[in-house]
């Protein structure tokens, strides 16, 4: 909904800044979707009259106009105070009051200058609304009312500068679908008075001019209230400029005074109206008096809308009919036959309340959504019918010189009873978190239009009669008696009558919401955020590590935290190694449990030997546990994950043969886990542990610290732990991950999505012989670094040593994947890239392709 501030300011004093209003509305729960400033126009745009308009020869649309600019001072003005202007607008004609922009005027999109068109001088421009930035209407030049004085600045005529707020009203607040509703909420939020428009009706005239009407309401469920006012001597003409500009700024097109008035009231009061041409209303069969019949449509009944479209009704729709046929789809759209036209002289003004569900169904079924249906389907009260009708009546009398008939037809059989609700300040505190006293509650709710009735005892739900909660204390409180030493129990509830336009206020909690919203949600006391006791990241990562190792076929072991120092010596450690600086128990049960473990490996080897001795061939064990280190006499507890694996990669299977666990399995266990945790960029070096065979493992180093290693258990160490590798006929692989450090390394990793390539990738294969001394990793890095924007990946798919390959060499086959993010790769480009790879391999390692 578009709200222009100059209009809104008629009902309430607005805050001085637009930003402040934006903030106020937003935090009152009214979403501001956009703010469009309408800046002041230069003073060189003003009203003027076209004295003559002659077609320009050889042009099908240009006119040469003499335009009277009155007393405006302009050097090239002629003796009749006229300037010459070429105008191409279709509605350009002599006698028209227009808005002229004189040469030098800077308009929103361009600057006017003196010009020569078809050899004729043109001193300025006659403007359309769009050219002035008032609306999007570019149908022709502005036609001002003919009684406008020449020389009035456009700013004055259109109320500029102005600002238009585009507001999003939530579906629970139909009362906000008009200027007054918005002003009322602001009045409560700002604690400023609301100025309702003063409605003064002329005295109804004598009964000779009374127009007879037969009003029949056949469906009170769908139309609980229908009112009709009749007017004669109506003059259909243009609306005054103030009314037009109100509509234009709120996004509506002016049509004629009567239609504009109903639209104005719709915008102001939020309640849609409709006007019928009285003379077009047919009487009921065999009668003479024009009729309005509120009924549901007949099946297959035709309805022709204002915009000449035909709709076939199916009988569910509520229609406003005359004695014969539908004149309007109730609350949705008017009909063509009874529409207001230039010839209309007497009218029926409808103001009614409709059942929202029925309006919604009709609007949805026939795909007609109007400003009217939008409001009715959100539920408008039966009570706002009256105010809207009165306001329109006043304007019709004033602006259409109409005579109002004295009879007001009002079919209202069972007015709904206004709701009375109680609110307990204590309950407010319970729900919102702070106490709001009775005075403040009265202030806020009073501004919203609720009337305070009484203090009283708490009674849940809607109150039928205030007598039900009456108590004399409440009466005294209301009168201002406050000399109670302590409030009596009976006055802890404030009772209010809810105004009928607030159909959304039905329970105490609805009032609490209103109060909290108006006081601002930030008034609720903020508590300090509790710091986290749990290290959720560490907890999750450790679980993920063990889940992974388990998924790779390892069984978890748990071993004592204390162990035997001799085991570390068996592993090959010397007294000087940090692993041998162990925390010693003062009162151990035995030497086997006399020191705290500094490594999980010895116990895993004992577990391995135990299981091999019990006939197991394929053993994969791990432990995630603490090791206990002495660091300068300080105790440090460090969680490690160690694993020992030997045998085949999985159970024997008759079809899918198991593979013997080797170096690349152990390596994969470490590297896949690091990859899963998002840790990349480790440097590697040959592992160096006294119990591992040299040259068959890696240490993984990040920030100069080892975070993981893997390697092959050396035969003498195995023997020391009772494992005969020759007998076993398989290698034993050890893996260790520094869990605590890995947890820290992945604590702040922040992955960012990369766009999916839109062009296909291309893969080329290369095969070549290399010396055993050349590392695949170096080759891969070398190729990748050639052009990282195009070379997406390098992977090896075959390694071969054998008959045709010389000793000390091997054959490698690799895929190179090319991917350009910007365009499709051409063969020439790839050939060129492959060539540069080959050249690089040759120059760096003297590698030739096979």
């Amino acid at each position: 909904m578009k709200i222009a501030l100059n209009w809104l300011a008629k009902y309430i004093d607005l805050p001085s800044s637009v930003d402040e209003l934006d903030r106020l509305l937003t935090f009152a729960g009214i979403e501001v979707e956009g703010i469009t400033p309408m800046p002041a126009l230069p003073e060189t745009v003003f009203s003027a009259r076209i004295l003559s308009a002659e077609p320009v020869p050889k042009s099908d649309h240009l006119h040469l106009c003499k335009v009277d600019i009155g007393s405006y001072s302009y050097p090239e003005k002629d003796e009749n105070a006229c300037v010459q202007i070429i105008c191409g607008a279709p509605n350009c004609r002599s006698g028209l009051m227009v808005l002229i922009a004189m040469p030098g005027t800077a308009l929103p999109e361009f600057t006017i200058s003196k010009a020569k068109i078809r050899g004729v001088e043109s001193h300025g421009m006659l403007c359309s609304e769009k050219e002035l930035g008032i609306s999007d209407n570019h149908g022709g030049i502005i036609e001002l009312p003919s009684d406008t004085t020449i020389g009035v600045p456009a700013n004055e005529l259109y109320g500029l500068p102005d600002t238009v707020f585009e507001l999003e009203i939530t579906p629970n607040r139909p009362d906000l679908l008009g200027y007054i509703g918005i002003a009322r909420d602001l009045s409560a939020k700002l604690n400023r008075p609301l100025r309702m428009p003063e409605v003064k009706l002329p005295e109804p005239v004598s009964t000779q001019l009374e127009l007879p009407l037969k009003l029949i309401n056949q469906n009170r469920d769908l139309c609980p209230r229908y009112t009709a006012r009749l007017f004669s001597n109506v003059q259909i003409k243009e609306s005054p400029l103030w009314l037009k500009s109100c509509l234009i700024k709120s996004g509506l097109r002016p049509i004629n005074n009567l239609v504009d008035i109903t639209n104005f009231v719709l915008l102001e009061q939020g309640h849609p109206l409709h006007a019928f041409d009285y003379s077009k209303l047919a009487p009921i069969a065999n009668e003479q008096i024009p009729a309005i019949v509120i009924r549901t449509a007949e099946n297959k009944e035709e309805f022709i809308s204002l915009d000449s479209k035909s709709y076939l009704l199916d009988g569910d729709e509520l229609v406003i009919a005359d004695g014969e046929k539908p004149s309007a789809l109730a609350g949705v759209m008017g009909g063509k036959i009874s529409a207001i036209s230039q010839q209309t002289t007497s009218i029926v003004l409808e103001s009614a309340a409709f059942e929202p569900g029925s309006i919604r169904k009709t609007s949805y079924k026939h795909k007609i959504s109007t400003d009217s249906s939008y409001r009715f389907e959100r539920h408008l009260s039966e009570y706002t019918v009256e105010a809207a009708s009165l306001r329109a009546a006043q304007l019709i009398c004033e602006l259409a010189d109409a005579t109002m008939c004295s009879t007001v037809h009002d079919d209202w059989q069972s007015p709904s009873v206004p709701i009375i609700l109680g609110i307990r300040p204590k309950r407010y505190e319970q729900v919102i978190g702070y106490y709001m006293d009775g005075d403040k509650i009265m202030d806020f709710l009073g501004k919203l239009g609720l009337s305070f009735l009484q203090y009283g005892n708490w009674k849940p739900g809607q109150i039928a009669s205030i007598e039900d909660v009456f108590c004399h204390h409440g009466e005294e409180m209301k009168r201002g008696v406050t000399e109670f030493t302590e409030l009596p129990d009976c006055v802890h509830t404030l009772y209010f009558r809810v105004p009928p336009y607030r159909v959304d206020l039905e329970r105490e909690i609805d009032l609490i919401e209103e109060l909290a919203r108006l006081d601002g949600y930030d008034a609720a006391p903020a508590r300090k955020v509790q710091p986290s006791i749990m290290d959720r990241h560490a907890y999750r990562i450790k679980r993920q590590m063990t889940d992974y190792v388990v998924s790779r076929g390892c069984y978890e072991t748990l071993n004592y935290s204390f162990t035997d120092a001799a085991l570390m010596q068996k592993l090959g450690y010397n007294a000087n190694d940090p692993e041998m600086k162990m925390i010693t128990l003062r009162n151990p049960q035995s030497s086997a449990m006399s020191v705290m473990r500094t490594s999980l490996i010895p116990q895993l080897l004992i577990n391995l030997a135990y299981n091999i001795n019990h006939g197991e061939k394929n053993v994969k064990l791990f432990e995630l546990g603490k090791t206990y280190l002495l660091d300068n006499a300080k105790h440090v507890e460090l969680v490690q994950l160690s694993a020992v694996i030997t045998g085949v990669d999985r159970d024997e299977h008759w079809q899918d043969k198991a593979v013997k666990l080797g170096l690349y399995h152990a390596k994969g266990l470490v590297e896949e886990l690091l990859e899963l945790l998002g840790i990349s960029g480790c440097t590697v070096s040959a592992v160096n542990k006294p119990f591992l065979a040299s040259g068959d493992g890696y240490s993984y180093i990040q920030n100069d610290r080892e975070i993981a290693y893997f390697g092959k258990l050396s035969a003498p160490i195995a023997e020391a732990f009772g494992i005969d590798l020759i007998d076993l006929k398989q290698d034993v692989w050890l893996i260790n991950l520094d869990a605590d450090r890995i947890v820290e390394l992945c604590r702040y990793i922040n992955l960012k999505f990369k766009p999916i390539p839109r062009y296909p990738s291309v893969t080329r294969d290369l095969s070549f012989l290399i010396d055993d001394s050349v590392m695949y990793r170096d080759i891969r890095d070398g190729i990748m670094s050639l052009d990282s924007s195009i070379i997406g990946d390098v992977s090896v798919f075959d390694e071969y040593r054998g008959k045709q390959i010389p000793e000390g060499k091997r054959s490698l086959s690799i895929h190179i994947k090319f991917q350009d993010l910007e365009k499709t790769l051409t063969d020439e480009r790839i050939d060129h890239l492959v060539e540069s790879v080959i050249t690089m391999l040759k120059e760096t390692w003297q590698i030739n392709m096979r």
Partner: protein
Amino acid sequence: MREQLNELVQQAEKDIQACSNQNDVMNVKAQYLGKKSLLNGLFARLRELPQEERPAFGNLINESRTKIENLIDAQAKKVKEAAWNSKAAGSNTDLSMPSIFSAKGGYHPLSIIRKEIDDVFISMGYEIAEGPDIEDDFHNFDALNTPANHPSRNLADTFYLVGGGLLRTQTSTVQIRVMESFAPPIRIASPGRCYRNDKPDPSHSPVFHQVEALVVDKGISLADLTNTLSQFASIMFGANVGTRIRPHFFPFTEPSAEMDISCVVCGGAGCRVCKHSGWLEMGGAGMVDPNVFKTVGIDPEIYTGFAFGLGIERIAMLKYNIPDMRILFENDLRMLRQFRGESR
């Protein structure tokens, strides 16, 4: 020419029916309907005919063409369906042969119980807090209201370290560490290793695992403790399990209690496991002693709290019917494999 056309159609029919795979069909299609087909050749020869015969013969060619097209489409469908059916039928697979599994691994039963307990507490809004195994006298004894000459400080019960320090005898030490650093409200569960100088035997181990729960807030009462215990027990052991607490003594709780659950083996009727009492002892519990609060700087007039501790080995042994605690530390694959199905 008319004869030529008839021959062509007859030959086409034969060739089409001889197609046994999709490739053949494609070839025949190219042969009879392609740009250089005989049929197209006949079209080119139309002008050899007298003007008046041309339309009729043109129609005839078109009809033949349509006929051949239909035959080809029908044969293509037939050939394709035959191929599908040949793949579907004639299978002599023995479905009962063993499936392909990925490598089989699993968690240790104590970890399984620990994770389950963690998850129960996390789901009840607790945070998991851990602390060091190596502790000082203050956190293990003094702060827990255990005076210097208390019998539990004996060498026979506690492992002490050369150069100072000891191995914590219960996870209550984490209570103290958390309360030292964080203000209430506090809801934590602290699982971890504990140490007591007991010789390994069927029901003792010098290294064992506990979970301790601690709740500190305004208005926490013994009723909250019993409610939490029964809620915990019903999640861990099933909705039908009963709980009770009995008065007991711990230095750091007042009142103190021991908590029991109804025997998970006999359901409370009495059996060998529960020594015919119908109840199984689960651990210690109680309201946090005001002295403990004072030590960590929490005002016991404002805050109250409860704590309880559970032995993980005991729960595992009960739940899985493991007769001897030492089995849990042997790491025998024949034991570990049994719990693969619990590693969820």
